[in-house]
């Protein structure tokens, strides 16, 4: 292989990897045999339901459960008075998930039941009964005396001195050192950058809360056998979930088994335990019976999490040649009343600029808790900064595509080289394929008549770093290989991908490899299906295990009788002095009926460089589905609150207005395939990257079609009509 100037190598063809391959579990998926957590049923199992707060902020004066506890079929009732279990993953200093040390020092902790309650839908009590109807009836008999408190919903308002304090320390969420200060990062000097600018621009953008809304509602079956707990729960990370359960319940890790074979969607922040797991385990312990806790769809909306809403203020300085001299963001992320994740807002790193400053305020509000949703920090920030840059380009009279190519990052933070660089290829090849010249209007909004078309573009750099994960491979005397990986397959096709990587690395057909997954008792550590890391990290471990097994085979020969060869590896690969990323550009043509406010996407091209694609069949649909979720974020999804009552009014699928068959345009996907010499056969990340670009490209296309800069997501019909009012 020879590397070109951009660090990419020509791809050498492989045998299994790179070929479109139907999933190894596809028969189970289409016959109803695939068993999801929601389907688990154990002998003698009780059903549990949760009572939730009707107040956005209230102190619980008293709870009377006596009537509920004596109802037919009711076996246990728990509240904050008799079940004080910390939920470590529910609130962490600085939002540092997957960090046990941070969970230990966290001051603003969350328990499975809290007093005061801090958002509508916060758990107040839970009931276990012989069937779900008995449990539901018992909830109605629980009497709670609340003292309602003032509440705040908007992150900017929450920082005002007169705002109701959700925590004693105030509403600015504490950082990893428990300090109430914003997250600031700086390079160069903004003052110098503004002074050097020929022109400066300022603007404000905002984005909404988008619920993950995976199809399988939150549920858990917990079952104690002696001191051993088995948990069936939809989790993207069985190992992290197990470790969280052990820590929160104060039992050794080997006393917890987590099983998740199939999972009805993930889309972020499920690589840990949930309060449902702890509530089910607590009830199961008390009743000495298996307990299944099921959330209704509405409970999933209020009781789980979604993308943090943001408000973003930008200052951009540009010199006479149209190059950036200053780039500043001050931004607010609404976290709900607990800190599940970072609240980060990405995007500034997309640009080459000597003077950059970012100030981020993660703020507590009395809303449903925010958490990671597919590309946690990315689409909201990319929408803000790339709308801003698009606007600057028009104001300077420059084609926004050329402005992007002139100013985009060529080195990470202008200093660290990328392992390879294909961003310009994505933009130039994508523009040609999309027909940018024909579809883009030099004069925005210039189409005659009420139905106007225009084109927009956005681009992406997104991390594809490596890290620790494990894999085990057995070879038996019959020549069958068994791969053990701790993945759960949340929908991306991980176990097929892992099987393909193993087959490729072993030099055998995929049909000769069995994959064992989704059970902490049988599988080694996996990084968990979050951060789009499984293919790179667990896939990397699979390659190492295959290599080790082949070496044993060469040294010892094939196993005979009942003997097996076993290779087990836990590599922690690193990238020396470079930054590894995926690159992409999305091109969108939008059609706006300015009299009706209706927006249609008439063409959508997603250009991606994700390294080598292991399974084109599933990778393509990861991008297509993610791009459609991005369109939903751009045009539809919001969790709207009634400001008088603090109640969310758009919970559920109708309320959230997710895209349907009729709203989903065809997404064209093109991969530029390269091998940068890292990762399994050069594979990078796919799962999250497709959602990141949609909102910016859609909003920029709407501007090109109408001449209206839409600064607040989602761009709903009422907002579109309002822009013309």
């Amino acid at each position, binding site marked *: 292989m020879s590397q070109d100037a951009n660090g990419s190598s020509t791809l050498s063809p492989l045998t299994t990897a790179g070929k479109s391959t139907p999933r190894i579990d596809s028969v189970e998926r289409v016959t109803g*045999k695939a068993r999801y957590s929601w389907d688990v049923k154990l002998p003698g199992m009780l059903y549990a339901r949760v009572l939730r707060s009707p107040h956005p902020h209230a102190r619980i004066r008293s709870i009377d459960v006596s009537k509920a506890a004596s109802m037919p079929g009711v076996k246990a009732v728990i509240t904050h008075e008799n079940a004080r279990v910390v939920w470590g993953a529910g609130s962490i200093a600085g939002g540092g998930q997957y960090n046990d040390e941070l969970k230990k020092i966290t001051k603003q902790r969350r328990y499975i039941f809290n007093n005061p309650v801090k958002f509508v839908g916060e758990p107040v009590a839970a009931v276990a009964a012989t069937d779900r109807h008995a449990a539901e009836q018992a909830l109605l008999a629980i009497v709670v005396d609340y003292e309602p408190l003032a509440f705040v919903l908007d992150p900017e308002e929450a920082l005002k001195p007169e705002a109701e304090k959700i925590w004693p320390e105030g509403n600015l969420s504490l950082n990893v050192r428990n300090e109430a200060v914003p997250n600031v990062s700086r390079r160069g000097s903004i003052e110098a950058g503004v002074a050097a600018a020929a022109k400066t621009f300022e603007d404000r953008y905002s984005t909404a809360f988008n619920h993950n809304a995976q*199809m399988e509602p939150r549920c858990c079956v917990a079952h104690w056998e002696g001191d051993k707990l088995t948990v069936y729960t939809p989790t993207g990370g069985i190992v992290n979930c197990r470790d969280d359960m052990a820590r929160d319940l104060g039992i050794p890790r080997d006393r917890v088994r987590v099983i998740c074979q199939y999972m009805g969607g993930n889309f972020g922040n499920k690589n840990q335990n949930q309060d449902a797991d702890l509530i089910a385990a607590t009830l199961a312990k008390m009743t000495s019976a298996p307990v299944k806790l099921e959330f209704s*769809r509405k409970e999933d909306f209020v009781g789980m999490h979604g993308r943090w809403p943001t408000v973003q203020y930008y200052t951009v300085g540009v010199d006479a040649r149209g190059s950036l001299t200053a780039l500043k963001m001050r931004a607010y992320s609404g976290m709900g009343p607990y800190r599940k994740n970072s609240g980060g807002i990405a995007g500034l790193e997309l640009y080459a600029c000597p003077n950059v400053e970012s100030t981020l305020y993660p703020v507590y509000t009395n809303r449903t808790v925010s958490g990671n949703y597919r590309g946690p920090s990315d689409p909201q920030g990319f929408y803000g900064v790339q709308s801003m840059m698009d606007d600057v380009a028009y104001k300077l009279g420059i084609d926004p595509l050329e402005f992007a190519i002139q100013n985009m990052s060529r080195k990470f933070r202008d200093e660290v080289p990328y392992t390879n660089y294909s961003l310009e290829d994505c933009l130039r090849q994508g523009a040609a394929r999309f027909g940018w010249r024909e579809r883009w209007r030099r004069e925005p909004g210039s189409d005659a008549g009420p139905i106007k078309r225009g084109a927009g573009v956005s681009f992406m750099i997104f991390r594809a770093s490596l890290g620790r994960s494990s894999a085990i491979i057995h070879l038996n005397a019959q020549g069958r290989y068994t791969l053990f990986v701790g993945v759960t397959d949340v929908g991306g096709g991980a176990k097929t991908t892992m099987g393909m990587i193993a087959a490729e690395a072993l030099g055998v057909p995929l049909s000769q490899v069995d994959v064992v997954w989704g059970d902490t008792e049988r599988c080694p550590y996996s990084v968990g299906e979050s951060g789009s890391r499984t293919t790179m990290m667990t896939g990397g471990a699979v390659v190492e295990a295959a290599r080790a097994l082949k070496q044993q085979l060469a040294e010892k020969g094939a196993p005979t009788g009942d003997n097996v060869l076993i290779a087990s590896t836990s590599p922690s690969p690193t990238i020396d002095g470079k930054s590894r990323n995926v690159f992409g550009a999305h091109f969108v043509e939008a059609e706006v009926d300015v009299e009706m406010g209706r927006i249609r996407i008439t063409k959508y091209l997603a250009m991606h460089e994700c390294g080598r694609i292991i399974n084109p069949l599933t990778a393509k*649909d990861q991008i297509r589905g993610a791009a459609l979720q991005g369109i939903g974020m751009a045009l539809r999804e919001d969790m709207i609150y009634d400001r008088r009552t603090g109640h969310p009014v758009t919970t559920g699928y109708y309320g959230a207005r997710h895209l349907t068959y009729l709203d989903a345009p065809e997404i064209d996907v093109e991969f530029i395939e390269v091998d940068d010499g890292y990762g399994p056969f050069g594979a990078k990340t796919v799962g999250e990257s497709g959602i990141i670009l949609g909102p910016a490209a859609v909003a920029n296309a709407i501007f090109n079609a109408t001449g209206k800069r839409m600064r607040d997501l989602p761009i709903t019909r009422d907002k579109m009509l309002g822009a013309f009012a």
Partner: protein
Amino acid sequence: MAEDPTLQVSRRSFLGTTGAVVVGAATVPTLPDTAAAAADPPTAPRTRIVLTVNGTEHRLEVEDRWTLVEVLRDHLDLTGTKVGCDRGECGACTVLVDDAPVYACSQLAVWMDGRRVRTVEGLARNGVLDPLQEAFIAHNAAQCGFCTSGQLMSAKALLERTATPTTDEVRRSMVGNLCRCANYNALVEAVMAASRAPRAATSGGGAA
């Protein structure tokens, strides 16, 4: 659809062996939780119904508040039908009742007396997958797979009505089946591939 003659046998044997039990069918084992539930006095009125599921007749005594999807999943162990919202929004629980697609979460079991229900478990015959199932596999129509059973049953109803649908007809007839993985492009491709429609360029939706 014509009755499968092989099913007559199971019906006769069913009628010959079933007594008055809370839930029972020749092909369905007695479920452990039935006994647990029976230990507590029933808290809701019950009604006896006859329900034919995938060709097998079941005589059931159901609580009047049970939905069809509860009976299928909890009492007949047919967990292929999923519950995504339990309130008629998502379509994950779609089954065919007398050949029409319905949301099983929004039908009370007592309304189903004498009706003929088909679920995803009944699509394959004697271990041979339905062409729709084959097309779903080839076109990666199931990502997380949780909406898949409902999608399959909606598509089945469509193709039984219309052997050669257009892509727009596919979209319109399946609009009640949400896919949060937003795998709609692949789903439309799979249904078209399973249909007898001539291969043609597809046109997108895309209204907001």
